[in-house]
């Protein structure tokens, strides 16, 4: 992200006492490679090589049982891609993934902005409040999903008990196991994707701290002068937020949107632990897991992963294009 900044330092070597400097630079370059080599080795062996192998696997017929004696030279085929693209499950999971990603990213960032603006001015106990806000993000995912599942439990979960006793619900809401609920309002029956909305709410709760963390860092470094000037000129607090603060936050919000989109799009743990991918929450990553462990079809799992990565790249390209057209710099 800041590589471009460091690069600019180098051309200076050409100036005074060129010869001695260059040998030092050369020695530094060699040492640099040496220092870098353990990292390169680990990342190549455990990240890059498996990725490339997966891409190869997506073009081969491969079941989980065969893979123990598989080699790289199995015949290539497009059968996995045909199978994945031809299944209706794939298209529905793609749609679910889009809705889930978009909803989660927008919700997490909006909540992050709201929380960051609220604690912007100093007050007593601000440090503690700040730390408390970060809890959902730092706590282990297995623990927080278990807490949510218990709280939303239809029999004894506190949310349903509270809803029935205080809010007057007729019956408990199966938040995590109901694919579509109906909401009666003004005689209309509106279908609600209950479980999907619950998982999106969970994502908003769990990841707003990430946005919050970056936004308060940015807010703290912002100069207060433009806002004071606007205040003197009679701007209302909303105008001052909308036209002075928000534009300054935009670059960091754009960055957060990109990061959160990538991570949510590939998210597996949260959905798998909350619903297991049932009740209309079968996002792509859970489906890939099922290809791998239930159907034991390695080739199809790899093919769908590759397709999802391509979709993500396409989405990010469109996104960056829009940003560039609007003159934002990421």
């Amino acid at each position: 992200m800041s590589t471009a900044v460091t690069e600019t330092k180098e051309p200076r070597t050409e100036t005074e006492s060129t010869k001695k400097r260059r040998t030092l630079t050369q020695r530094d370059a060699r040492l640099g490679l040496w220092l870098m080599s353990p990292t390169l080795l680990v990342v190549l062996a455990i990240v890059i090589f498996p990725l490339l192998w997966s891409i190869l696997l997506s073009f081969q017929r491969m079941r989980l049982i065969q893979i123990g004696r598989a080699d790289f030279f199995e015949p290539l085929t497009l059968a996995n891609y045909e199978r994945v693209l031809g299944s209706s499950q794939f298209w529905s999971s793609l749609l679910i993934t889009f809705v889930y990603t978009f909803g989660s990213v927008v919700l997490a960032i909006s909540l992050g902005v709201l929380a960051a603006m609220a604690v912007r001015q100093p007050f007593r106990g601000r440090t503690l409040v700040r730390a408390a806000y970060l809890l959902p993000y730092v706590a282990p995912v297995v623990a927080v999903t278990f807490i949510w599942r218990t709280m939303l439990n239809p029999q004894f979960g506190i949310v349903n008990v509270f809803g029935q006793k205080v809010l007057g619900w007729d019956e408990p809401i199966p938040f995590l196991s109901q694919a579509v609920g109906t909401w009666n309002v003004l005689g209309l029956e509106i279908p609600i994707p209950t479980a999907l909305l619950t998982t999106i709410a969970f994502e908003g709760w769990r990841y707003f701290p990430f946005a919050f963390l970056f936004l308060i860092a940015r807010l703290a470094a912002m100069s207060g002068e433009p806002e004071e000037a606007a205040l003197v000129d009679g701007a209302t607090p909303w105008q001052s937020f909308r036209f002075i603060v928000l534009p300054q936050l935009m670059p960091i919000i754009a960055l957060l949107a990109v990061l959160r989109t990538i991570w949510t799009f590939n998210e597996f743990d949260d959905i798998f632990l909350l619903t297991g991918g049932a009740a209309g929450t079968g996002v792509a990553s859970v489906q890939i897991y099922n290809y791998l462990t239930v159907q034991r079809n390695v080739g199809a799992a790899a093919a769908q992963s590759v397709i999802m990565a391509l979709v993500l790249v396409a989405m990010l390209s469109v996104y960056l294009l829009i940003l560039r057209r609007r003159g934002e710099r990421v």
Partner: protein
Amino acid sequence: MSTDIVTPPSQVAAAPEQRRLPRGTRHHVQSRVFGIGRWVVIIGFLIATLVPFYYMVLLSVKPIEALLSDPASMIVKPSEFTLQTYVNVLSSPAAGGQGFGRFLANSAVVALASVALALLIGIPGAYAIARLPFIGRRYISGVFLAAYLFPAILMAIPLFVGFTRVGLRGSLVGLIIVYTAQTVPVAIYMLRNYFETVPESIEEAGLVDGLSRMGVLRQISLKLAMPSIMSTGLFVFMIAWNEFLFALLFLVDRRERWTVSLGLSQLSGSVEIPTTVLMAGSVVLTLPIIIIFFATERLLTGGLTAGAEKG
């Protein structure tokens, strides 16, 4: 002589006067709404973030019968208070418990080893990226980032196969290697930011005084970067301690090697184990992270968002 430079006192007094706008204007109403709304928001977020954790601790210290008979209760009666849930969850299966004591030890070994390895590999790498002009330096961050575009499960398939072949699957060592590889890029990102803030002139002074590059790294940069190294180590610890997917894929059929995360996720599907006991397991899983986090919050958040200030 210089009187005309000094602002007349009347004008100085006028500035704060101007800010106090008359009541009833849009500005005034909005200020009031924002002033109250701000506290509503602060408290709303506090409830949303703290209540689930309070609920976790609450359920972990009452017997399951108390929960089922009065699920609406948000307090624990002194007569109901029990720590038997913790005894049950921590003791070994042989003693009739759930074996979380063992899981804790496994998680600690995996997380600490991952921290040590990630720092050992990441510190030289970060220094090289920050300071040394080697070939391909420009592209390395891009390659690391590109790897994040793929779902982790895609990497998991070949690793599953490869580790099975060399006998590392089902062992904690395999997990340590994966966690190290996953966290090294993050460690490098965090450390590099710090190494770049160390003034180059200090390092050049060291070079002039006859230190080698490695000497500079060891005796100057490393000491200056100590707080950043601490925060990076803690961050890696949290990632390794919280990780779930690879533990699931590699260790699921080896109960004696489960990490706490895996153990809780596997046992929470069982109907035989009371929810309150599992909540005790949740506390056991969460507590180390919360302690580390509160002890080092400032250090940690500073390291992660370094560079965000620049916009």
